[in-house]
């Protein structure tokens, strides 16, 4: 949360020799981060980020207190001027006993765990009085609207000291029954906030009720219209309550009312601060609104002085353990003392008494942090001197392989794409499961990112289509490596890592890409088999537009011991899309092949062309059958296709002797006979 701090206002609480630039720099190094200094109405205003745990710094005085300690550490003589705590004794009742106004009856219906403090009094004010020019300017400088003098005072003291407060119209409260009952709201109760917005309780919010059960305030968050002060208000019930932060947050979040009061109150603001803020507000109501205190001061504080007298024991050794250097005890005690942390040295331990406003300090290391940041992180050395004991890697991922694959795909003219993991309903429908069975965002931001994609292909194809036309390219190949999400009850099993590829390369070229890509990791015997829809597992069955064929891709590891499905191919007209399982690839991949001894003899290589009659089972199967005909057939490669004519390059090799041309004649004959007999294929040319 950010707070704007006006220079002159800050300097009412902070006497220092440092200028604004120096305050900005030093504060950022050791405390709250000053994001910028801006000039507003002729004065410097600091924009400061206060971390959520330091609600005590969320005010002019709170920041001055922090700044005084830090600036002193850098050698700027600085001091907190704290007069707010001294007002209490100076204020007197302005009327005699008989004229005294009666306070409304206050009933605690929630208990001390929730209602930590209420402090209030009635002040008679002059309704026509306007806000002082100084106060109005400061409120504008911090971005607050200027309202009536009474409302402005409540905002002003909230900014100055840090505890939100409220002004009721006393007469309205009395007309509504003269009682304020602190209660948990039932569900479905209507109320209207002071700016005219209508709300309905969800149940469980802390509310103030009148005897009829009507809501007359949403405490610690926002006032309601029925008890709010207006320009006619003559008697103000000036009021501060301190509620449990969880309850404030619940009310604020469930009603979506995020006022400054709510943001502060939900962060565990100090109940002691309520008293100081109350008296400062009272002082201003009296001085600026020609006001008179006309009631007793009501102060309900069930915990009283017992509230958070926290003590933390810190082993002296803990400072060195975190800082990596040894500080002298004297130095540690000086820093903690400056921070108003009462310390006593108990030998091995240090006993630290924490002031009530530092609710962020709870465990020993919190104290270490205080010392470290004021000492200055910039004063600690920088080193990497621990022993390097690398931990074991995750077996399911291989980042070196992923990087190498990406580099290799780049060489094969593929473009890498990064897309959102969430897709539109339209793309989700092209995924692998019915849309109702897909994971869906409950609070999507835009309609194009709603479902967790079950496949990379639909969105990748969309990118391909968008780019091929725009770029005026004849050929385009793209890929993405990312997770897909298939619902499972067990969360860890939902994601699987895939490589999606979309290309319009001709099939044989595309297949060469695939085989080279896998072959680089010594994955071999890549096979594709066309499948009927029902043969494809549900998670791989995509509903792509224009899908004409699906095929399963299998491959083996280098030793040929393991064969796995590595992915699926989807044909959509001229577009070929494949989704590969990175998990299977990682399992099959190796970093070396099984070495084949080199033959000292040279191969005899020849081309044979056949005119194929029928092509049962595909050319791949035919080649397998040729290979199996003889031990001496080394490799069979498809060289060329022309209409129905297929030319194969066949190499013959023996590991025992140099083959003569005559020796391969019978094998050649066998090939031709097999082709004729079983496939009706006719040799082009003569033996």
């Amino acid at each position, binding site marked *: 949360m950010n707070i704007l701090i006006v220079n002159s206002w800050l300097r009412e609480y902070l006497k220092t020799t440092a200028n604004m630039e120096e305050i900005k720099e030093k504060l950022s190094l050791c405390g709250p*981060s000053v994001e910028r200094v801006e000039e507003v109405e002729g004065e410097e205003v600091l924009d400061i980020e206060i971390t*959520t745990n330091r609600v005590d710094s969320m005010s002019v005085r709170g920041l001055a207190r922090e700044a005084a300690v830090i600036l002193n550490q850098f050698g700027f003589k600085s001091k907190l001027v704290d007069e707010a705590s001294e007002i209490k004794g100076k204020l007197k009742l302005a009327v005699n006993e008989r004229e005294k106004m009666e306070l409304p009856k206050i009933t605690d219906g929630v208990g001390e765990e929730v209602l930590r403090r209420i402090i209030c009094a009635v002040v008679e004010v002059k309704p026509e009085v306007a806000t002082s020019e100084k106060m109005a300017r400061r409120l504008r400088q911090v971005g607050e609207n200027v309202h009536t003098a009474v409302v402005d005072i409540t905002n002003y003291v909230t900014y100055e000291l840090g505890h939100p407060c409220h002004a009721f119209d006393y007469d309205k409260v009395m007309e509504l029954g003269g009682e304020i009952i602190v209660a948990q709201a039932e569900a479905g109760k209507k109320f209207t906030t002071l700016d005219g917005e209508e709300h309905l309780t969800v149940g469980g919010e802390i509310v103030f009720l009148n005897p009829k059960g009507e809501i007359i305030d949403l405490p610690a968050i926002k006032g309601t219209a029925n008890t709010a002060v207006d320009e006619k208000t003559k008697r103000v019930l000036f009021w501060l309550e301190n509620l449990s932060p969880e309850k404030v947050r619940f009310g604020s979040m469930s009603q979506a009312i995020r006022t400054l009061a709510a943001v502060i109150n939900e962060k565990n603001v100090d109940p002691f601060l309520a008293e100081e803020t109350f008296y400062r507000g009272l002082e201003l109501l009296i001085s600026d609104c020609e006001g008179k205190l006309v009631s007793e001061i009501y102060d309900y504080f069930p915990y009283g002085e017992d509230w958070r007298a926290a003590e933390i024991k810190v082993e002296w050794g803990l400072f060195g353990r*975190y800082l990596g250097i040894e500080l002298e005890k004297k130095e540690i005690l000086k820093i903690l003392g400056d921070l108003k942390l009462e310390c006593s040295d108990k030998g091995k331990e240090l006993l630290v008494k924490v002031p009530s406003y530092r609710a962020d300090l709870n465990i020993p290391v919190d104290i270490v942090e205080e010392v470290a940041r004021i000492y200055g992180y910039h004063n600690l050395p*920088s080193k990497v001197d621990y022993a*390097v004991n*690398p931990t074991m890697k995750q077996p399911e991922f291989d980042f070196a392989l992923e990087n190498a694959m*990406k580099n290799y795909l780049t060489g094969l003219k593929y473009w890498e794409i990064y897309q959102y993991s969430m897709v539109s309903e339209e793309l989700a429908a092209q995924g692998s499961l019915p849309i109702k069975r897909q994971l*869906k965002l409950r609070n999507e931001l*835009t309609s194009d990112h709603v479902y967790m994609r079950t496949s990379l292909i639909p969105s990748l194809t969309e990118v391909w289509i*968008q780019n091929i036309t725009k770029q005026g390219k004849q050929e385009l190949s793209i890929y993405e490596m990312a997770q897909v999400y298939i619902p499972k009850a067990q969360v860890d099993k939902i994601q699987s890592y895939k490589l999606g590829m979309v290309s319009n390369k001709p099939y044989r070229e595309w297949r060469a890409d695939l085989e080279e890509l896998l072959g680089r990791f010594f994955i071999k015997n890549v096979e594709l088999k066309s499948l009927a829809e029902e043969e494809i597992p549900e998670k791989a069955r995509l509903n792509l537009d224009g899908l004409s064929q699906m095929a399963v891709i299998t491959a083996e590891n280098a030793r040929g011991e393991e064969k796995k499905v590595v992915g699926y191919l989807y044909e959509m007209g001229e577009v070929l899309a494949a989704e590969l399982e990175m998990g299977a690839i990682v399992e099959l991949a190796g970093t070396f092949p099984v070495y084949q001894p080199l033959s000292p003899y040279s191969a005899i290589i020849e081309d044979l062309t056949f005119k194929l009659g029928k092509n049962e089972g595909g050319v791949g199967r035919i080649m397998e059958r040729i290979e199996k005909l003889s031990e001496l057939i080394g490799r069979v490669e498809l060289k060329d296709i022309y209409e129905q004519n297929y030319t194969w390059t066949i190499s013959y090799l023996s590991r025992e002797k140099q083959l003569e041309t005559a020796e391969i004649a019978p094998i050649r004959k066998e090939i031709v006979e097999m082709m004729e007999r079983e496939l009706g294929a006719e040799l082009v040319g003569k033996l």
Partner: protein
Amino acid sequence: MTIGEYQSLAAEVLAGKEKIAVLQSRLREVEDKREAGRVFNEVKKELEEREARKEKGAATPINDVTLPAAKRDKGHKHPISQAMEEIERIFAQIGFVRVRHPELDTDYFAFESLNMPPTHPARDEWETFFVDNPDAPEQKNLVLTPHTTNGDVREMLRLKSQPPVRMINIGRCYRRQQDATHTQMFHQFDGLVIDKDINITHLKGVLDHFAREFYGPDVRSRIRPFHFQFTEPSFEIDFSCHLCHGTGKIGETKCRFCKSGWHEVGGAGMIHPNVLRAGGIDPDVYSGLAFGWGIERTYTLKSGLNIDDIRQFYTNNLDFLGQF
């Protein structure tokens, strides 16, 4: 004519001393017609290829060196992948092992185990996407992780709560936000070191190492106080500006690249004892450091890169990607 003589004739043709037509006409004189046919085809193919190369301008004198390069298709690796690989390499030098933890995770690992109970206001800072799981409708705690810190406790558990832990978790994160500096999906990396006697000086050492390697030898890191629920103490990390070297000024004028001398890049801290406990590690014996920040921002701070809208990384415009 023997096959050997025919081969010699073929060599002459290839050397340009004889015409291909001669080789063709004498084919019928060779006894081993099959072999001679093969030789002839090879020579013919070779000459055709030479002709094709010649058409492309090969083996001719370069008369004009200003001729542009031939147009050729290329592939491209996404800049985020390039940045990730570099980050992985830099941390590997000092013993960090890269891991990948789930993007879709439970609220427990994304928040609760990180010392953020369900109603904690600190959760507001992560604009979190929640996910419905049709296979387990009762599961109301699924989120798209808003930070790679969800891997911290997971990593401790993966290593069976046995330090040392030296992790660099690089992955996708998601937040409900969208403007020039925020995208719904982005990338982060989280580093984690747990061992005996790990302290703040080590964190500074790791950050300085990264700053030097990623941005250049003159760049330094600095840590400033901050608050995270999962670290204590917590820091914000700044890297010094490579242009003004942390001074905020170039000569007498304000540095336009950084404004203050430093770039704020991420968060860090010493792991909170409760987080170590959630990972089954005794905070009285071990301590740890953790840091993490966004890859897009880290990458776009590189000197001279000049990308000012990170949404471009995810528009998949080839004109953009083709520059990397």
